[in-house]
C-alpha cells in the first residue's frame, strides 16, 4: 500500500523559489523537506511528503483524520500475521 504521512511545517529555512525548504515535524521527528513545489505552504501548514519533497498541502482537520486512521491501521496490522523477519 502506498502511503503519505502528513507532517507539520515548523519553519521555513530557505525562501529561494527553487530551493525552498523547511523543517517538517512528524510526531517527535523533524526533517528537512523541499518545499519548492508547494509555494503556498507556510509554517504551521500540514503537507504530504514524498521522497523528501512536499507534494501537497492539506488542512489540519484532514491531517488529523489521516494520522488517526494510520494509527488505527498500525494496530490492526499486528493481528494479521507475524512479522516476516527482523523488525528494526
Amino acid at each position, binding site marked *: 500500500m502506498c502511503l503519505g504521512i502528513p507532517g507539520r511545517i515548523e519553519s521555513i529555512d530557505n525562501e529561494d523559489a527553487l530551493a525552498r525548504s523547511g523543517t517538517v515535524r512528524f510526531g517527535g521527528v523533524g526533517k528537512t523537506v523541499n518545499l519548492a513545489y508547494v509555494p503556498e505552504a507556510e509554517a504551521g501548514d500540514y503537507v504530504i511528503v514524498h*521522497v523528501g*519533497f512536499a507534494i501537497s498541502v492539506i488542512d489540519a482537520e484532514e491531517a488529523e483524520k489521516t494520522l488517526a486512521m494510520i494509527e488505527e491501521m498500525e494496530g490492526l496490522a499486528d493481528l494479521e500475521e507475524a512479522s516476516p523477519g527482523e523488525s528494526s
Partner: protein
Amino acid sequence: MNEESKQAWNEGQQRANASYGAKRKRITIDPITRLEGHGKIDIFMDEKGDVEKAYFQVPELRGFEIFSLGRPAEDMPQITSRICGVCPTAHHMASTKALDMLYSVEPTSAAKKLRELIYSTFMLEDHALHVYILGGPDFIVGPDAPAALRNVLGVVDKVGEEVGLKVISMRRRLREFIAYLGGKVIHPVFGLPGGVAKGINPADLDGFKQLADDGVAFAEFTLQVFNDIVLKNEEYVKLITSDAFTHKTHYMGLVDENNHVNFYDGKVRVVDTDGKEIAKFSEVEYLDNIAEHVEPWSYVKFTYLKKVGWNGFTEGNDSGVCCVAPLARLNAADGLATPKAQAALEQYFGMLGKPVHHTLANHWARAIEMLYAAERIQQLINDPEITSQDIRTIPTATPKRGIGIVEAPRGTLFHHYETDEKGILNMVNLIVATQNNAARMAMSVENAAKGLIHGGNVDEGMLNKVEMAFRAYDPCHACATHALPGQMPLVARVWNKDGEVIHTLRRDSQVVGKV
C-alpha cells in the same frame, strides 16, 4: 446523512472497533518507526564471496483491508485517497469505478469524460513530478555526478532556472484545475457511483482550454529536454540498454477498444516477452488472471500471472512475473490515441525495439505519457459535451460486488469490494501498482548487487546504484516517504555463507532535532 445510513455507519464503526479490540495482541502504535523505516536489502554470498541471492524489503502499511471492513462502501473513495496521499486521484478513481459496478450503474457520457479529464490532469502532474524531480537527477544531471549534485538543484543548474520555475507553475495550475472539479486534491470529493459531483461552468472553459494548450507545450518541451540531454549522449543510451538494467518479463496495462493506452478505462491487456498478446480481461475476470505469491522474507504480496504460474523471480515467457507502469503500458498497447504522443512513441520503439525491456527506459516512457495525457486533456476540454450538466445516473440497484481498475502513474491498480445489501463492506481486496512491480523490482536489486559485489568486496557506492535500479519504477513505499531529496534511507546487510552479517551499509535520512 439520513437516518438509515447513519445507523449503518454506526453499526459498521462498532463492528470494526470490536474486531479491532478483540484481536489486538500488542501495542505498536509508533508512527516514528514507520517514518524511520528503511528500505532493507539482504545480500547472501556464496563461499567465493559472490552474490548468491539478494532480497529487497520495504516496510509496508498493512491492516488496511481489516480497517475497511464494516464501513460503508461509499466511504472508500475518500478513505483510500486519504491514506494514499501520494497518488490520491488514482485511488479515488479506482474506488469510484468499483462503486459503479457495486451499484450496477452506468455513469453518463459527460461524467465519464469529466472523470477522464481530471484523471489525465493528475497523470500529467504526477509524471512531471517524477520526470523533473524524483527521477530526473539520475538522467538530467547524470548517474555518475557527485551525490551532492544529484538532486533537484543539479537539475536546475543543467536546464536553467526558468525551467525549474516553469515546472513549479505548471504543476500548480494543473492541481488547481483538479481542485476546481474535485474539491481538495488530496481528498477529492468528485467521483460518485454513477457519475461525478461537479461539472464545468461554461464561463470557466476558456481558461482551461489555455491550460490544456500550455500543458501540451510543456510536455513537448519535456521530451525535447530528454532528447537533447539523454538521447544525444551515448553514455546514457549505453546505460539504459545495459544488461544490468534489463529484464525480459511480461507487461500489463489498460487498453481501449483499439488497443491504445488508456489510463482511465478499458480492458487489461497482457503481452509476453515478445510483445505478443497472451491475455485481455475485464474487471470481473481479474482473479482468473492475477494471483499473489507470498515470500517468507517480505510483507509485500508479489502478484503474478495466474495462468502462467509462479516460477520464482525469473525472466522469460515461462515466468509469471509481470511488469506495470509506463514502460509496461507502452509495451502492452498497440499505440497511443493522440498524434503527437504517437509520433514520440514511434521514435521510442524505433530506437529501442518493441517490447522495450530496459528498466531505465521508464523515464522516457513517462515523458511520452506526459504528452499523451496533455493531448488527451486538450481533446476532452474541447469536447462539446464537457460542459454538460448531465453528470450523474442515480443508482437504484442493491449492492453486491464491485471491481474498479485504473492505470495509476505507477501501474495497474485494482480495487475490489463486496458488501451486504446495505452496502456495508465485508470483503476488500486492493492490488496496488507497486505490488505488481515488486517481483521485477526485487530482480533489479539482485542484478545490481550481483554486478557490484565480487570476491567478498563490497563497493560502498552500491546503495546509489541499487537505488537507481528501483527508482525508475517510482515505487511508492512507506520508506520512500520521508527521506531527504535523493536520499532514501537504506540499509544493506551482507551475509557470508555461514549466515553471519559481515557488512552493514547504512544510509539514514537527515533528522533534525529529535525530541
